């Protein structure tokens, strides 16, 4: 708790600052709305159609695989903090873990799931 307190303060400060800036713009800034200004902004080009487009399932596959290997990396962090203490034993167990996930990566690669067709 004590260690997290400054973090809370910082979050509070950051949130407050962002909120204050938006509020100031809202209240102090002059508003002259025209129909052109109210149009959705799409990188300067004329908007075509709604923003909601159906995504290709390929994105989903990539996102799935990303999560799987993201979780793997999460486990690496506590290991990296104490790997000197763990010594060879820690190295071996992490090697087993990485080996299985590397096999998963090879499998995914060989199956062509990383290709964008």
């Amino acid at each position, binding site marked *: 708790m004590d260690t997290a307190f400054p973090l809370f303060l910082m979050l509070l400060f950051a949130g407050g600052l962002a909120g204050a800036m938006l509020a100031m713009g809202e209240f102090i800034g002059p508003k002259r709305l025209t129909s052109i200004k109210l149009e959705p902004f799409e990188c300067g080009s004329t908007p075509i159609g709604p923003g909601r487009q159906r995504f290709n399932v390929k994105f989903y596959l990539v996102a799935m695989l990303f999560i799987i290997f993201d979780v793997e990396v999460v486990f690496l962090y506590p290991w990296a903090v104490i790997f000197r*203490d*763990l010594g060879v034993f820690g190295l071996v167990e992490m090697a087993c873990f990485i080996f*299985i996930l590397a*096999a998963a990566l*090879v*499998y995914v690669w*060989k199956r062509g799931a990383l290709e964008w067709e």
Partner: protein
Amino acid sequence: MNVAAINISLGGIGPLLILSATALVVLAIDCFWPSERRSHLAYVTVAGCLVALGATWRLWGAQEAVFGRMIIVDNYSTFFTGIFIVGTTITTLLSIGYTSRMGIDRAEYYALLLFATVGMIMMAQGLNLITIFLGLETLSISLYILAGIQRQRAASIEASLKYFLLGAFSSAFFLYGVALTYGATGSLDLEHITRAVGETTFASKPLLLIGVGLMLIGFGFKVATVPFHVWTPDVYEGAPTSVTAFMSVGAKAAGFGAFVRVFSISLQPLSPDWTHLLWLLAVATMVVGNVMAIAQTNIKRLLAYSSIAHAGYVVVAMVAASALGTSSVLFYLLVYTFMNLGAFGVVLVLGRQDEEVLAIDDFAGLGRRAPALAAAMALFMFALAGIPPTAGFVGKFYIFSAAVQGGFVGLAVIGVLASLVSVYYYFRVVVVMYFMEPAGEIPLAPRSAPATVALVIAAAATLALGLFPSPFITAASRSLVAVLF
């Protein structure tokens, strides 16, 4: 940092390691040396299973908590490991031929069967709720994928989706139950939980009861007891038949493996609280399963309701909450593995190309068309109904006598009545096969030698366990000798 204290024993998790390695080998072979026909992968799978079975055999008699008390190697878990591996071996043999007919002959199919078995073993060997949960998830996720592996068929995908949604929901219940149990007892270790529950000044019982109730929902879903059974008929019908066969025996046995260890063993001091709940569950499961099965016209749905009813019988043995009751669970699940895989196996070898014979009426005339196959089916139906001299009879006899000895005479009577009802629908299959005029020719799949071997093993075991049950009953009861940690 004391590494020695956590007692690493690679031998203790030998079967698990061998099966995982086999799965990796199967995938590697297919990735690096792809070929059109993939039956050799099935043989690699079977070889891995046999080696793992040997490793399991060598664990018999061991009694040790390993890996920081995450895993327990005792006869109970070894017996279950044996059941799982036998089930996987028979399923793999039955799948040869069927998978290529159905277009699911992929390396992933065999690898997932093996990974699912790894999950099952983790559930049976888990001495910690974390291990049990990880096993449950490994098993469940493998089964979700396997149910939907036949992607060209909408029913398969639908089964996968239904199973996944409800299964994820039940996992959440289970996990919440685990969390509350941890809050109430301060530990996830099953032995520590027993100790905490047994203390007279145990103050957090209400919290524990909610946790236990939620875990009951999770297990109840996995083994398909009423009222957590609604997914079963749809998933069993939609999944490829070989996958249905696998999950009807493997997932059920694994579910009970963890269920019995957590409830009948670890939460034994709490049994006055959960016995009545399980009593209700057993009665509802047996009645609903058997009554609903009567109306079915599809053999896979019939076997689905029958598998619900069989979960009810096993819960009867859990209600008895005695050593006899628990060993009858082990024996019954062993028997059930053979007879149910056999029944599904016969369904598997019927049909032409990607068509299957699933309507019960289409079995008409099988007695003349394929006498051996019909005889085998009749044997499995008799066994499932519990007719002597098959193994099904011995298993049921053992369960109901455990219930009577435990003082649950009413429950035993309901169980016997429910199995009498079941005789009706099992016999209907036999009657259709032998005494009904066929409307047309029953398509028989090209004979697959491995599938024949699997059916012969299942039939022989169903008979042998019925005629000479004593060594297996002894083994089942010896599984419990030192099970109490």
